[in-house]
């Protein structure tokens, strides 16, 4: 039996760890349709699994939980069945791959892809310190939905919000998406700085300084791309960052630790596991900053670190010897 039978079915596209957690959370409020290529079993009668994109059309809200690199292909296939009545909210923490359009040096977000690959216009992004555990086991927490359309936020609240999960609204979709993507860089930095190897020289105060200046850096990039600076002070950026400092298990942290301990970039990626969406953007952010004359010291150093052009010791020195300006 559903608690609120009036809610139209919610679809979840993708059944990775986060997709499954979203499905569990949404199954507490009503009917859920999960699109997956794999056979899956859920213990809730409210969940139905399908591999037919055509079935998505019956859902009002579609939660997109596939890795950024597969999104284009999946959205194109799903797009054949969707129209202006479907609301799509993604949980991507990455930026769009620019390798298909090398001339396109803009940092594009997932909502751009949704709008160009499908007829859907009412689009949103769910971000903040929401982990798979919070969703699955109904632990208290909060997230933010960035969307210019109030009905999108309302639909997400109706699907996964409730007494244990507070869903805040922001009309700065761009800001929420960029905050979600760029915070990955900051998490990497924290992982790096808290590693015992580097951490010998770096205390909590250093981490505080790194994290705060890091937020200022990603907010500068966000502003250059039309986002609001305040959004970076919210759940999508600071919220995620505090969770990391308090010990969340985001893979970017592990990646930072592995690099700090001298692992090669490929070995570090393997050790961190998971789909690390945020970290590959370091190079692009650094290039973007150079082109648009925006200071991006962290992104510069991270892109050098993960390509192996800079050692951990040099990285710290590099960050400290720069000119100091106003906060």
């Amino acid at each position: 039996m559903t608690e609120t039978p009036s809610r139209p079915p919610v679809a979840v596209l993708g059944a990775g760890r986060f997709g499954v957690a979203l499905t569990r959370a949404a199954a507490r409020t009503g009917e859920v349709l999960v699109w997956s290529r794999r056979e899956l079993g859920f213990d809730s009668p409210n969940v139905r699994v399908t591999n037919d994109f055509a079935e998505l059309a019956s859902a009002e809200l579609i939660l997109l939980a596939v890795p950024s690199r597969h999104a284009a292909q999946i959205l194109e296939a799903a797009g054949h069945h969707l129209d202006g009545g479907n609301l799509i909210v993604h949980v991507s923490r990455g930026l769009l791959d620019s390798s298909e359009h090398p001339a396109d040096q803009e940092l594009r977000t997932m909502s751009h892809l949704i709008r160009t690959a499908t007829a859907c216009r009412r689009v949103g992004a769910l971000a903040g310190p929401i982990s798979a555990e919070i969703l699955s086991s109904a632990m208290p927490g909060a997230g933010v939905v960035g969307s210019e359309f109030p009905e999108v936020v309302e639909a997400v609240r109706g699907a996964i919000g409730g007494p244990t999960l507070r869903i805040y609204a922001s009309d700065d979709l761009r800001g929420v998406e960029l905050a979600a993507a760029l915070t990955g860089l900051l998490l990497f930095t924290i992982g790096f700085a808290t590693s015992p190897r580097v951490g010998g020289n770096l205390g909590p105060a250093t981490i505080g300084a790194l994290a705060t200046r890091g937020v200022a850096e990603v907010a500068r990039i966000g502003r250059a791309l039309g986002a609001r600076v305040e959004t970076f002070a919210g759940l999508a950026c600071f919220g995620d960052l505090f969770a990391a400092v308090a010990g969340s298990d985001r893979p970017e942290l592990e990646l930072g630790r592995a690099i700090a301990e001298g692992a090669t970039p490929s070995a570090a990626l393997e050790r961190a596991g998971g789909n690390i969406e945020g970290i590959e953007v370091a190079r692009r952010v650094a290039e973007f900053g150079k082109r648009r004359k925006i200071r991006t010291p962290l992104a510069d150093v991270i892109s050098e670190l993960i390509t192996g052009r800079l050692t951990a010791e040099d990285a710290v020195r590099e960050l400290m010897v720069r000119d100091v300006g106003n906060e």
Partner: protein
Amino acid sequence: MPQPEPKRSRVRDLLTKPIRLPQWFAAPRSPDEPRIFQFNDERDLVVSEVAARVVGQCLGDQLEVLLNESAHKEIERLEKQRDDEAREWLGFWQTVVRKLARMNEAERRETLRQIVESMARDVAGNFDPRVYRFAQRVIPGLIAGVMNPKQLTRDAIGGKVGAERLVTLTGHLDELAALAKVGTIIVVPTHSSNLDSLAIGESLARKDLPPVVYGAGKNLFTNPIISFFMHNLGAYRIDRRIKSQIYKDVLKTYSAVMIERGYHSLFFPGGTRSRSGMIENRLKLGLAGTAIEAYARNAIRARHRGERPAPIFFVPVTINYALVLEAESLIEDHLKESGQARYIIEDDEFSQIDRWLTFFKRLISYGGACVLRYGRAIDPFGNYVDEQGRSLAPDGRVIDPVSYVSRRGEPCLDPARDAAYTRALGVTLVEHYRRETVIMTTQLVGHVLFRKLVMETPGVDLFGRVRRRGEISWAFEDYVRVYSETRDRLRQLARAGQIHVNSYVETYSAERAFERATDIWDGYHSKTVAHLDGGQIVLDDPGLLLYYQNRLVPFAEAIAGQHEQRAAREIAALAGAGR
């Protein structure tokens, strides 16, 4: 509250009130004629619908605040104006302020209704098919005839009218006839000159497409002859001096009601003429944004009747001039930091008849100096439409546009949603403008020369650069090489569908392009823009070079060679400097 009795003065009426022709000899109606031909019969209905809707939207305390705010803004404006309008209305507004606190809800509503109705009447246009037919037949030839009678005789023999020599039409214009029959067309062009609305009107008439209604600044109505034509051809008057919220609501509601009733419309979504010469890169859409609410209202009504609403189409158009009538005033205004907020330039070239004459003379003898490019029609949600006006998803599938204004299958009104759609439409239109831009010779020559100026003045800001009048010169042979390379890159972009180039850009050599550009500039602009002196090009007026080259700002990096990338980046950064 009694409204002021207008003071009678026949002379003033002739100068300020729109002149209409008596209806004695009006032609009988034909069933195929465009909707606008019947506008005069519906006029009162439109005005009362606007009044009812605006009054209906304001309730309770909000109404008192609205009246109070509007009254104070109007008093402030009228006290400054000190003209006949002030003498008529100042007393009325002062009374509103005095009595407002003692009014009950019904009295407040009645006051608002009076204000709104009077505003709506002032805004509402007129359409006289006879004036339209006269304008359609006579004006294009007249312009050409006055400017160059000999050419007119030659054109008449060759079957050409003057306007065809002035304005080249290209793009997706032929699809519009079918779309105009099934839905409402909203033409949304780029805006560089006050001549734009005339150019659009002429292009539609030339293709036998129905005329469009459009809002024109009240300042354009001061000339009685222009006022006569504008007022009888569906233009409605917008007084940009009025800042009160009630007036803004009236304008928005008026345009929404017109779109709902199926009147094809013209809006300049950039708001005012581009001061910098750049293609609009941020659109507020303003009144054009009312189309989405209009569509939602039609969808709700149609649902009640069990029908489908008539679709609404946005048609992006780029208006590309080799020579811009008001270029000098516009760029001067752009470069004045404080000037950028000004909507009305009172004394620009548009109001100077001798400048008109020189301008048109130059244009007529030049050939192809203005290109109007019509883009493909889209629905209000940014989807392309097919030839029958059906909305298409990116995969080409027909979709129902009502789904965008529906929640759980039912169409509904939602101002926040519609505002979001409007912003998204603004972004989409900017992309269309960019792709549909046609680069003219003066723009490309201007760009290559200005880029040289940037390369020669490292570390100097824009204002410093435009002061370098006649200081920079460039060997002509170097220009020839660089121009040719730049043009080739531009052609590649054109082939990739990212932009269009004028036929002269396509075929002319660097030498002939320079000649063509300086020729048209010299014959019109009061200052020399660039000239050739003993094998050296002298850059005389960086301000005008900037104005013409600004059209290429979004493409600066893509058309620059390795050596010019640094300068190109600086030029590309101008896009952030606004309109």
